[in-house]
Each structure stands twice: as C-alpha cells, then as structure tokens.
C-alpha cells in the first residue's frame, strides 16, 4: 500500500538526478539570449546603432561553428555530476562568443565607413553572464582548494590578456577608445590601485588598533561604533563632495599641507573619503573576530600567566584573524567600486573615463572605465577569499 507513491515518485527523482536545475536554467536563458542582438553596428562613435542577431554578425559557416560551441557548452552545463565537464562547457561557450565577436569585426567593418563602430550588444553580455554563472556554479561543486582558485584566477586573467594582446579584438569599439588613451589608461589603472589599496592599508593601520581598543573598552566601543556607522550612511557622492571644501580649508590654513599634496580636489580628498568608508567594516569585523574567541581559551591564557599583550598575540589575534581579514576583503571590494567616484572630484582612476563617457554619451568610454573596475573587484575578492582561508589557523578550518 504505502510503496505505491514511492514507486511513482521515482521517475521524477531519476530525472532530477540526471539534470542540474541551475544548469537547465542557464541553458534556457542562454538559448533565449541568442535571440537578442549580439553586436551593435554604428555609423560613428556616438549615434545610436542597429543591433544585429548572431547569424547576421558573421559569414554563415563561422556563425554555425561558433554557435555550435555555445550550444554544446550550455548542453554540457545541463547535466548533473561531473562538474569538470560543466566547467569545460562554460569555457567552450565563452570561447564561442569571443570567437564570434572577433569574426564579426572584419566582416561588419569591411563595408561600413572608417568611422563605423562595432560593440558587443545585449545578446553578447547576457551570454557572457550566463556562461560565467555556469562556471561559478560548476566551481562551487568542485570546491577547489585555495591555491587552485588562485591558479584559476591567474589562468582566466592570462587568457583575457592573451585575447586582448592577440589583436583579434583590436577593432572593437571599446578597444578603439583604449588605443587613443593607452597612456591615460595605464595612469588611471595605477591611480585606481593606489586609491583603493592605499586607503585600505591606511584603514587597516587605523582600524585594527581601534578595533582592539574598542574590544578592550566598552565605553570606547559604545562611542565609536555608532559614529562610524553614521559615517557609513553618508551617500558616497555627498561624502566626496564634503571632502572638497574640507580639504581646501585644510590646504589653506594648515602650513605645509599644500606642499604634501593636500588640496580640495584630486587624490587627497578621494583617498580620505575612501578611508572613512573603510573604517566601520574593519573595526566591526575586528570586534566580531575578537568577540568570537572562546571565553574559556581567553581565561585559560590569563590563568596560566600570559600578560595582556601575550594573550593578544598568541591567542586572540590568531583566532580572530580570518574574520578581521574578511573585513579587509569587504573594504577592498567596496573601495575598488567606490574609487570610480573619485573621477568626479579629479581624483583619477577608472572613474575618469566613466564620467568623461557620461558627458559625451559615449557608452564605450564608460565601459572602458567600468569593465576594468569589475575585473579588478572580482580578482580582489577572490584573492582576499584565498587569503582568509589560508590564514585560518589549523584546527579551526
């Protein structure tokens, strides 16, 4: 009697065992994306262009070949188990769309004028997103160790660099924007790194000791945490705006301030704004990490005769370190994104291109600022995750 429902339930169970539900979703979304325009062809840099479907983007044989790779890749992603095969599927699909894009360039630009521009359109971006989600899903099932993750990141960045260096995409609109600004781009990249990592380092130097002090003293904690939380709620545009008159005033009144580069606009106010935003996450995570140290371990350390400093160094900090580093991770990723706004107050960085592009309504210029920022933030997140994992003390992993 009771066995009957079980028997009926089995085929459904078998089906869900053969297919990966997210894989099916990715395949459906990916196939649907093929119906969207794959590239946009425009007569010049700033006019609106026409979207072209994948099969209109390149000669038929090329399209068939590359789309077959995309469909096969999505198909490999559908099955369950064998996550390496799903991972391979996502790579195959990505290779397919990038190849199609590279093939589309000479084909479309041949007849169009000198000023014509080709850029990826919604279909390309959607497929890229779906395939990357598939990659992430496959990787989460693979559970790669920290070193393997770092290796994969290097491999992916290396592949991206190779594709760009090969020149196959050189006639892509965004690459044309880049070519005119190679020097400015390199400068912006360094400035972006200096802003986000520099403010992170300064935040760590201030917020770690501050967090430890707050942990020691309840009064300091009750005063600092609300204050820093308030700073965190200031909208970013307003924060960067406030810095201008503030630092202009400092530059004008404090002797020597102007000489060390402090001014109302430029690097200094941007750096300070990022620093202020960084304090709360680092202080809060330092507190959370120290709070999570088992009270019995703390008491045993004191009870055996460790001084407060010895206890901090050999018991509390090692146990709190992963959570403290998780705070740095939040801040680094947040700062890489926020540093874009520095472009608005002359602070440099990739934001410069974004705001120039907004002024000129040149989408490709905006992307020239936005895409590297995204790549940088993702890479930073992965590197910091690995660091957090590697610093987890033995026995607590």
């Amino acid at each position, binding site marked *: 009697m009771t066995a009957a429902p079980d028997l009926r339930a089995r085929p459904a169970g078998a089906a869900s065992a053969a297919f990966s539900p997210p894989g099916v979703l990715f395949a459906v979304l990916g196939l649907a994306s093929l119906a969207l325009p794959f590239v946009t062809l425009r007569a010049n840099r700033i006019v609106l262009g026409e979207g072209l479907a994948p099969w209109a983007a390149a000669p038929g044989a090329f399209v068939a070949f590359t789309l077959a790779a995309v469909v096969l890749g999505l198909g490999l992603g559908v099955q369950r188990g064998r996550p390496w095969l799903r991972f391979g599927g996502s790579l195959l699909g990505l290779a397919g769309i990038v190849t199609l894009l590279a093939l589309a360039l000479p084909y479309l630009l041949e007849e169009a004028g000198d000023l014509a521009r080709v850029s990826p359109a919604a279909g390309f971006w959607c497929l890229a997103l779906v395939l990357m989600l598939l990659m992430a899903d496959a990787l989460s099932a693979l559970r790669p160790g920290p070193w393997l993750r770092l290796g994969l990141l290097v491999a992916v960045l290396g592949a991206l660099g190779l594709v760009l260096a090969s020149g196959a995409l050189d006639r892509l609109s965004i690459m044309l924007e880049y070519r005119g600004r190679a020097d400015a781009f390199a400068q912006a990249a360094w400035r972006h790194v200096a802003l986000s990592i520099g403010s992170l380092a300064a935040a760590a130097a201030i917020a770690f000791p501050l967090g430890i002090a707050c942990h020691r003293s309840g009064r300091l904690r009750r005063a600092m945490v609300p204050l820093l939380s308030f700073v965190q709620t200031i909208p970013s545009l307003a924060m960067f705006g406030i810095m201008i008159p503030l630092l202009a005033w400092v530059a004008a009144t404090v002797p020597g301030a102007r000489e060390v580069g402090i001014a109302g606009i430029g690097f200094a106010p941007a750096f300070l704004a990022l620093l202020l935003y960084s304090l709360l996450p680092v202080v809060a995570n330092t507190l959370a990490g120290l709070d999570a140290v*088992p009270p019995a371990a703390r008491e045993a350390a004191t*009870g055996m005769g460790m001084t407060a400093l010895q206890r901090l160094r050999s018991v509390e900090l*090692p146990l709190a370190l992963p959570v403290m580093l998780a705070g740095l991770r939040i801040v680094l990723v947040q700062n890489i994104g926020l540093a874009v706004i520095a472009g608005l107050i002359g602070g440099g960085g990739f934001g410069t291109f974004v705001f120039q592009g907004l002024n000129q309504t040149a989408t490709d210029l905006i992307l020239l600022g936005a895409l590297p920022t995204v790549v940088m933030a993702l890479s930073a997140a992965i590197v910091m995750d690995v660091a957090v994992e590697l610093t987890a*003390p033995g026995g607590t992993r």
Partner: protein
Amino acid sequence: MIEIDEITKIYQGQRAVDAVSTTIETGTIACIVGTSGSGKTTLLRMINRLVEPTSGEVRLNGEATSAMPPHLLRRRIGYAIQGHGLFPHHTVARNIGAVPRLLGWPKAKIAERVDELLDLFGMEPSQFRARYPAALSGGQQQRVGVARALASRPDLLLMDEPFGALDPIIRARAQEDLRRIQRQLGSTILLVTHDMEEAIRLGDKVCVMDGGKLVQDAAPTRIVADPASRFVAEMVGDAERPLRLLSLIPLSDLLEPGEAPGDPLDEGANLRDALSACLWTGREAVPVSRDGAPVGRVTLEAIRAAALRHGATDDAPVPA
C-alpha cells in the same frame, strides 16, 4: 601552605563567596564540594587572582598574593579551567607546552615533558601530539587540559571539575593517576568538584560549600561520620553514608588471623569491597592477602561491628 583568610566576593550585592577561611597544608589535596552556584569556581579563581576578592586575603607560604604581580603569580600556579579551555588553534603538544614556553624552557625539554605527560594520561604521544583539540573526544580534551596545568610542575595546582567529562572507568583511573602524581611530586592541589564521592576518594581534606559559605572543612572520614549540618549530610547521601564510611576504612584495620573460602582481597582494599564480596558470594568472611600471600581474613561480623561503632557516634542528632 595556602592560607585563605576571611575571603569574600560580592557581585552586585550578592555574596558569591562569603568570608571563607581555611588552610591547606603543603603536599595535600583539598577538595571543594558544593552544589552548582555555591561559589566554588569563584573561590578558586580568587587564589590566582582571576577574580579580585572584595575583601580578605590569600597567602602562599606566608606571602600575600595581593603583593605579587598577577601574571607572575599565575605562572607559579597550575590552573585547569572548568571545561578544559584548550587553545583551538594550537596542537595538543603546543597546548601542553604553553606554560613551559612562557617560562622560557628549551624546546627539547618542553617536547620531552609533553610526551611524558601524554604517556601519563594514557594518550600515545605519537598519535596525539600533533592533533588539534577539535579532533579529540571530550574526555581526551579534558585530560590534555589537566596535563597542561601540570606541565611546568607547579607546586600548587587549581583544578576546576577536571574530571567532569570522563566516564566512570577513565575517571577512576584519572583520579588514581592524579593521586599518584601528587604523591610523587608532593604538590598541593585544590580541586573543585560537585561529586562528593570524588571529594572523599581524593581529598585529604574536604571543604563543603553552600551559598558562598564554607559549611564544613574536615578530613573525609569526619565529613562522612560527623556531618556538620543537614546540608552536608545530604551531600554525603543519607542512605549511602554507612557504605561511604566503610569505603574509608582499610581491611588492615579489621584483619584477624584465620582462613576463609574464595578469592582473596588485597590488604589495600576497603571494608566496602569486603562487604560487597561477602554479600555477593554468600560468604561469612573473605581471605586477605598481602603481595599475593595470605595474611588472614575479615569477617562480616567484624564489618557489621565497625559500622555500628561509627553509626553510634552518629546517634546524636545532626544539627539542622
């Protein structure tokens, strides 16, 4: 010698420990027993100044603890915290070697001491040395916690329910080990437990606490035979008191010449063992041996008389 002098701790108007005074002789074990919340841990922690007394004084060999820097005082005193308190990010070896490292022992000497202690607690060094606490059973963690307290061979050991997580068999063995180590090294031990049986078995002296007050401190026989209050009597367990008492009297006290049937008991056993051997096998007497050679017997009759003798002193009503 530890002198505890009118020591009091008040938390938010509550007297967690209330004017406790007692003296613990060098080289002896004192067991503090009491119900949960009676102030045992607080009393113990005031000795190594993890808790500062509200009033009163503790003296080690005549020297007031309040006069020493707390961290130096604590390095002289072994402390096994309630619930082990091992460092989760350190291996067993590093946990045990923590105090010797603080004291600056050379590495080789620490390693040797770690292995010695693991051996002592029946944990194969090669197997356990490199493990992390998370990979130990509760009982093993507790033994490592005790080993850590013993590592620097302190003269004074404070132990807060060190055997709470052990099963009865391992527990009895750990108690014997502790007794043996203590006799060998002549260390002074202050041990907190809520188990009267453990206190009676281990203690040269038993201190019974109730609601922050020390209600009786005396030798185990005294505590069992002559409880100072209804509370102490209850702690001992009214129904089991005769048996507890018998368990404190060695066979040698009632040894008489003669023979008896059945397996002999060693002279070191107690009257309770003899009684249960008689009842279990229906004998009127059990043979007693010393180092395997028969030396006489103990009769059921004599055991009964001994129980009566002690029971008689007990006829005086127990003070409420």
